[in-house]
């Protein structure tokens, strides 16, 4: 689960990482009031779960409350990489002497958290990694040893943070960021830029914070931060129904069981000339109710021109999936062609049920490849 900048900063503050004072606003009027309350120059920042806000005009300075309101008006409603801005964060503007970058990520290969620090902050870290890899100091933390100050010192010495007072602040901050990473079950904590003010104060000017969905049961407060309105409408619906669904751009709706098989199905659709409309995993269960829910989500996407079921039964039983398809056709009006490929546990029974139902838009295919070809052909004809 990705957090908005302001939510990440709330967590930062909770773990003692210095951030600027600010407040959320969802209208120009609110932005004006916040600016008034904060006093002085403020910065109005679009809250969207994507990067590139600056270039897209989503971050603006304002000298007066009136200007803050005007800036908020410009920013609210902006479309930034497909994300519509619904809220802005208004905070006291900071003077910036230096821009650093600090992050903790999950290094899956090393199976250890990875700390990264560079004094070349404020730009995309991939750029820095490519342009001047030596400028990017990296150190792994053994999760059993936990973070130790020597690791933060190493980051400072290697990245070239030379000023002793800055070093001291950065070392403390790295420790607190590690605490936040562990304490909030984060997959990523990134501060870019981590700024040094002309007075020598080090603080987080932005936040990128991703929390492990599997650990949200330990963090009801963070779970509540989820913005149910964010994302595509189909994805919202999927969340409500508990369906594992990712919206894509094509016209072939896809359901399968198991993430790998579904990804593979998307690829095969592309290979036979189609474009997948979504990723949708029925998961291990795949009972009738789940099939109905998933079909509701997929058909809510108006771009979908045909639907492919690709089921390889293991725990999932073919007859159960067939029952779900028939039940869905009973409850909903689906005129789109539905191609079904069933294999594995109880697949024969399932296929028999579907053939017997003899629904005019229901097609049963033997192999994954032939099913993909069939659905692309049928969708193309529409």
């Amino acid at each position, binding site marked *: 689960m990705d957090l908005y900048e302001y939510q990440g900063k709330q967590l930062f503050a909770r773990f003692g990482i210095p951030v600027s004072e600010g407040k959320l606003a969802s209208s120009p009027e609110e932005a004006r009031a916040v600016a008034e309350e904060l006093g002085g120059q403020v910065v109005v920042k679009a809250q969207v779960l994507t990067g590139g806000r600056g270039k897209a005009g989503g971050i603006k300075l304002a000298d007066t409350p009136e200007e803050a309101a005007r800036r908020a008006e410009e920013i609210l409603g902006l479309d930034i990489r497909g994300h519509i801005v619904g809220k802005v964060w208004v905070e006291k503007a900071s003077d910036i002497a230096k821009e650093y970058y600090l992050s903790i990520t999950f290094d*899956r290969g090393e199976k250890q*958290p990875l700390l990264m620090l560079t004094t070349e902050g404020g730009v995309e870290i991939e750029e820095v990694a490519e342009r001047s890899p030596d400028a990017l100091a990296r150190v792994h933390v053994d999760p059993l040893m936990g973070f130790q100050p020597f690791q933060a010192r190493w980051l400072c010495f290697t990245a070239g943070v030379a000023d002793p007072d800055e070093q001291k602040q950065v070392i403390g901050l790295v420790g607190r960021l590690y605490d936040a990473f562990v304490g909030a079950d984060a997959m990523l904590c990134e501060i870019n830029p981590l700024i040094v003010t002309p007075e020598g104060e080090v603080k987080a000017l932005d936040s990128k914070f991703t929390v492990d969905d599997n650990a949200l049961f330990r963090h009801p407060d963070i779970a509540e931060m989820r913005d149910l309105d964010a994302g595509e409408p189909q994805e919202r619906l999927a969340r409500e129904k508990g369906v594992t669904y*990712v919206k894509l751009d094509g016209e072939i709706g896809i359901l399968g069981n*198991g*993430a790998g*098989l579904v990804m593979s199905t998307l690829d095969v659709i592309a290979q036979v000339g189609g474009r997948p409309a979504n990723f949708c995993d029925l998961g291990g269960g795949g009972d009738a109710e789940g099939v109905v829910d998933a079909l509701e989500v997929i058909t809510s996407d108006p771009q979908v021109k045909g639907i492919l079921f690709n089921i390889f039964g293991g725990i999932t039983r073919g007859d159960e999936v067939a029952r779900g398809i028939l039940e869905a056709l009973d409850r909903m009006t689906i005129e789109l062609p539905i191609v079904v490929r069933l294999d594995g546990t109880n697949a024969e029974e399932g296929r028999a049920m579907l053939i017997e139902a003899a629904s005019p838009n229901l097609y049963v295919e033997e192999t994954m490849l032939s099913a993909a070809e069939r659905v692309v052909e049928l969708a193309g004809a529409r």
Partner: protein
Amino acid sequence: MAIIVDSETRLVVQGITGREGSFHAARNKAYGTNVVAGVTPGKGGGDVDGIPVFDSVREAVAETSPNTAMVFVPARFAADAIYEAVDAGIETVICITEGIPAHDMLRVYNYVYPRGVTLVGPNCPGVLSPGKANVGIIPAEIFREGNVGLVSRSGTLTYQIGHELAQLGVGQSTIVGIGGDPVVGSSFLDVLARFERDPETEYVVMVGEIGGAEEEKAASFIEAEMTKPVIAYIAGFTAPPGKTMGHAGAIISGTAGTAQAKKEALEAHGVRVGTNPTEVARLVAEVVGART
């Protein structure tokens, strides 16, 4: 021999009285796996399908000498269950449970690994050595005995490939589902190294997917360390960056972890890569046929 599980396996099932635990314990037993015990705290003294149930792994070990544990315990108690198995001296732990917090697994991995314990999973379908033992939820009827080792991050995709291989008459030594989570106990490298050492395995199929850099590391390893032919498949060419594709680990971050990059890395190290399950099965049949 096969790898990880075989006829020497003596299995204890943790969480055996749960719905999934009892169902699969019985299935594994019916397949011929030597399921010696089950554990559910507070349910000690009973039995599931004739398998004695104990309150703790330590007791199960004292009474029935298992060497392998299968974990079916709910996600929030799963790390505890793995520690319990390791603490009781179990050498191989296969964790089926999905949804375990990544930080839990991070600690578990770093605790377990230096102790020489083999951990497979979590969030994996288990390990099947056809004709010897099945530990997990893999539908054994898809697979037949043979000399091809199969290692995969995905369950059903593995079944699909096994199914296609079976249709071409190719059987397996062992099928290992390593799981799709960000932190898994056994990586491709670990399993490839075992297949390389296993006399019953002559060919290996590796089924990868987007996310991480394990396939790239495996590519270098295969070229440097493996004498046995490896054929690979990667899923997720059409996946967009930044979206988690079902598996918590299946996410393309920035430019890293794309299927294309993985395919290129593998091919650069001399590994043939199929672009769909049917093609990969055909490639395997070709290689196996060429050598037999």
